[in-house]
């Protein structure tokens, strides 16, 4: 088991290298440069800036220079935030996305698994159709629709949460992370509900469930003790990538609620052609995704009794 985890960690290196290289050359292919948007700048100033940041050198030289810095965990300065390094920008924005994402994840789990279980237990009855049609709506409704609806209800009507912003919002009862987290959480909850229902129904059809019933076990033990473990396997494999996606920040949701999270920073960096920030966030996202995929796989393997040894 440990060996597998270790080897998967080593795989991280080539994956990230490919990701980095692709992104690096893609940014170079895109027309325009980081300073072309600044109207006031004269060609001489731009040339000076390009020279200062090494953008006048041949691409492969830039690439090698960048690579050699990245190996030392130096992601360079941000072009947009002149005084900040890429690491500092990420360190400032990521905790915000992490808070929102973690809360969204918990909301998604709680609602998704509950709804999916209720639906599976009441297969083809009202309490199956009702939560599952809601889930369908949740999946089809993009966050940029769901977000404003929630904002309308909770922020403008009930006034329990801030409409926008992050800092200095103590005058409303709810933390500014709650509304973005709810928006994201409901979307993921819908997916989890469907996976939970499907997984549970699969297991509930198995022979060993009939054995459990033949033993006279009450329904709740059949569901929670006998069916859940196998039924949640598909959910577990979904959770890793989902968590990585959630905590890396959603541009749409952060934009709606005007939260300065990593999702917004990433999109801004693309528009500003802030090459080091683009590369830095891409590597950061890549690492998160690979790590949490690995966590998912390990969790799944641990749930399989064949991976365990008996005394």
């Amino acid at each position, binding site marked *: 088991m440990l060996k597998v985890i270790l080897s998967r960690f080593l795989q991280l290196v080539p994956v990230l290298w490919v990701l980095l290289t692709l992104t690096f050359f893609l940014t170079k292919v895109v027309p325009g440069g980081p300073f072309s948007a600044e109207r006031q700048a004269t060609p001489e100033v731009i040339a000076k800036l390009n020279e200062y940041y090494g953008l006048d050198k041949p691409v492969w030289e830039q690439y090698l220079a960048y690579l050699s810095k990245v190996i030392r965990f130096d992601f360079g300065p941000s072009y947009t935030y002149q005084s900040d390094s890429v690491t500092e920008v990420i360190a400032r924005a990521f905790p915000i996305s992490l808070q929102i994402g973690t809360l969204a994840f918990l909301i998604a789990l709680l609602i998704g698994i509950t709804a999916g279980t209720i639906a599976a237990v009441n297969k083809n009855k009202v309490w199956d159709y009702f939560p599952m049609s809601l889930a369908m709506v949740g999946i089809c409704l993009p966050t940029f629709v769901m977000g404003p609806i929630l904002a309308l209800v909770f922020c403008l009507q009930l006034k329990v949460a801030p409409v926008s912003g992050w800092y200095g919002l103590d005058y409303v009862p709810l933390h500014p992370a709650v509304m973005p987290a709810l928006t994201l959480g409901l979307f993921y909850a819908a997916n989890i509900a469907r996976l939970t229902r499907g997984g549970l129904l699969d297991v509930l059809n198995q022979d*060993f469930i009939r*054995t459990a019933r033949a*033993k006279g076990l009450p329904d709740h033990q059949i569901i929670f003790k006998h069916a859940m473990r196998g039924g949640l396997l598909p959910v577990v494999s979904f959770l890793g990538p989902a968590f990585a996606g959630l905590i890396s920040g959603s541009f749409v949701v952060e934009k709606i609620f005007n939260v300065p999270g990593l999702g917004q920073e990433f999109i801004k960096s693309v528009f500003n052609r802030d090459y080091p920030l683009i590369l830095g966030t891409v590597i950061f996202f890549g690492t998160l995704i690979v790590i949490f995929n690995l966590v998912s796989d390990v969790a799944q393997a641990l749930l399989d009794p064949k991976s365990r040894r008996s*005394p």
Partner: protein
Amino acid sequence: MPLLSVENLRTYFYTRAGVVRAVDDVSFLLEPGETLGIVGESGSGKSVTCYSILGLIPQPPGRIMGGRAIFDGVDLLGCDKERLRLIRGKRISMIFQDPMTSLNPYLRVSEQLIEPLLVHEKISRRKALDQAVTSLEEVGIQDAGRRLHFYPHEFSGGMRQRVMIAMALISRPEVLIADEPTTALDVTVQAQILELIKRRQRDLGTAVIFITHDLGVIAAFCREVYVMYAGRIVESAATGEIFARPMHPYNAALQQSIPALHQKGKPLFTIPGLPPDLSKPLPGCPFSPRCTYAEPKCREQAVTLQTMAERHQTACLRYQAGELNDLRAAVGV
């Protein structure tokens, strides 16, 4: 007084292809401590019969259309679910055909083995586990104290069926329903498992409903036999009678196809044709398309089970009319 009396049980499945009459008017009696065999080809409704009694039919698509199953004064088909649940696994237990899939792969055997005790009896975990060790020893599993904590995948098929038997008998039930418990096992293991069930039955005084598609197994085991075909009982008698005086051509054909009785050198007899599609109405005798004795009237006249001799019933119209006498000659064994 019979311990369990099933009367006119009918269980249908409402599928897209139509109404499958899986069990159609089945009745039988089980006396305390005795062994009753139900025999018939695959698909004849044997499993559905037992699942119906224990409330294990998936509903939908299944539906119990009628009948009673009186156990100790309680109608299992009509009583409320909670009452049936308290009987299930405590007073009536069941073992299944496929030991590879009938145990939960995610739970240790110990956990699954003590469940009937924890659910039905006021007993501590500690005591239940002690009892589980004993029960494993009783089904011939060596080193039971250690292997108790194995996962099912660490046992072979035969061993798993032993675990299933231990689990079914741990609460000392009055009835054990064994649904083809040896069908999925190697031939060498089959005999051991049969011997084990027999021994445990003797020790505990449990009545057994033994289901099989192999009449040969019945011979060694059961006192009374019910032959099932297309969801109905077509013949029933004491085991000796079933073999000595078959009264239904289907029974006779089944005897011809017993692997253990077949003469070396000759090809093994198999009944030509297939059992009928249970979702279509079956006028007349359901066996008529495959029966060598079939006559036009067999396809038209309604069949009923009739008693021809002491506790010997047949649903064959021609036998009832006295037109068939020595079906045993046809068996040729």
